[in-house]
């Protein structure tokens, strides 16, 4: 590779901010200049394993307890955002677990709070963003992606369905006709199609993705944050089908 991907550390190079970092096995949470960075740290594919969801539940408590955050940026370490759930592990777990439904619902709530957070949450997506990973990104408020990102909900091709709210959110963003087409065929789509479908808000050069997301988060006007929080709350209600 001729280009080098910028990591969070690069973006903040030479800047002396008070950095607070917490590392988990599959995740890393750090706050720099009031912007929270949540990075999936199991490259190359950043698979969403059982352990990942456990870490997500742990970091959720930390995030909810962090005062004075301005925004959160969610990204994957390395080339890819995430390839989604670890299917073999998930199938095994559901079969062994007496209360698989409860387990899956806790997976759901470990991600769905991004919607209720009333803070701008930005997904910085590059590489692959498939299955549960796309569902994760759909829980966030903004989705920025690199040029050659691959999106898709391939669950039906494994005789399953998108199980953490992806069907409803895809349909809300792209309409029944197009969303059902992609969900039932399970086929992937590129950044341009994602933009057209309303799945992403911006396509950026891969190497600038993270720094642009940081710039955007910094640019978010301070005094409008309370207003934006209300907008997110309204949008959230709409997504949930409440009036």
């Amino acid at each position: 590779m001729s280009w080098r991907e910028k990591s969070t550390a690069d973006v903040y190079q030479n800047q002396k901010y008070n950095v607070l970092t917490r590392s988990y096995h599959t995740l890393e949470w750090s706050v720099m200049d009031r912007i929270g960075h949540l990075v999936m740290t199991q490259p190359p594919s950043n698979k969403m394993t059982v352990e990942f969801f456990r870490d997500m539940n742990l970091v959720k408590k930390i995030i909810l307890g962090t005062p004075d955050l301005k925004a959160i940026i969610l990204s994957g370490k390395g080339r890819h955002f995430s390839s989604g759930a670890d299917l073999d592990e998930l199938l095994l777990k559901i079969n062994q677990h007496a209360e698989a439904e409860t387990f899956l619902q806790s997976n759901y709530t470990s991600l769905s709070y991004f919607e209720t957070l009333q803070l701008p949450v930005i997904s910085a997506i590059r590489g692959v963003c498939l299955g549960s990973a796309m569902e994760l990104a759909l829980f966030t408020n903004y989705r920025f992606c690199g040029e050659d990102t691959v999106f898709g909900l391939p669950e039906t091709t494994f005789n399953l369905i998108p199980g953490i709210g992806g069907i409803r959110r895809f349909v809300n963003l792209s309409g029944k006709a197009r969303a059902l087409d992609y969900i039932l065929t399970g086929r992937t789509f590129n950044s341009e199609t994602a933009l057209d479908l309303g799945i992403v808000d911006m396509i950026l050069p891969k190497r600038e993705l993270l720094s642009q997301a940081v710039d955007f988060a910094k640019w978010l006007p301070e005094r409008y944050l309370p207003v934006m929080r209300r907008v997110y709350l309204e949008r959230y209600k709409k997504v949930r089908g409440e009036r």
Partner: protein
Amino acid sequence: MNGRIEWEIREEIGIITINNPPENYLFEPEFVPLDVLQKWTSEKTLKGILIYGKGKHFSAGGNLNRLFEIIAQEENLEKKLAAGNAIIDHLVNTNLPLVAAVHGVCFGGGLEIALACHIRVAAENALFATPETSHGLIPGLGGTLRLPATVGQANALQMILSGDMISTEEALMMGLIDVILPRKEVFGHAFNLLHSMIKNLEPGIIKSVIKVLKNSTSMPSEQAIAEETKIFCELARKEYSRRLSESEI
């Protein structure tokens, strides 16, 4: 009366043809008897339903003369309308993908049938309207609910109160239809689209996806999430045992 609505299964897709030319009026609010439709759709291998109109038009909707005839004969109109709604509900509750291939006029009850579908493919010459209010009536087959849900309140109110006809361009802009095609390609495109969506999937998976989608608007969100989780677990268990039995062989 059955002759006015026809049924055929082609490559696991059920095709409902409105065959009452030239305008394809719906003879009754209950445009096909419920027990007949139930029998048609009970086919286990069915994976999707396509609705279209034979001849020049999709459907001009209910026949006003027939409606007044029902009232004149003192038949119970409420019951008849409820029966009509039951037909549409039954189609929706099959949890199969529903596609309408629309050409020519698509008015009133005809539009309400198309609105119950997930996807609407339209010909260049298609025209849409809800003319009920100009006859002193309102849309009676769920249109007052489904039209605003599809095109937004502003557009829906304009359409319903004015009764004006909407062209395909306007319909596409407001999200009433999903694609515009030359008249001759409409049926083929709609069929191929539906076929490409369902051909590799088990009916159970298709129905699960549609059911989850339906729940998201018909249920409080906590309940919808719980239901989604339950459906996912059922499928995951099935898939797990399928993989086990495959690896044993």
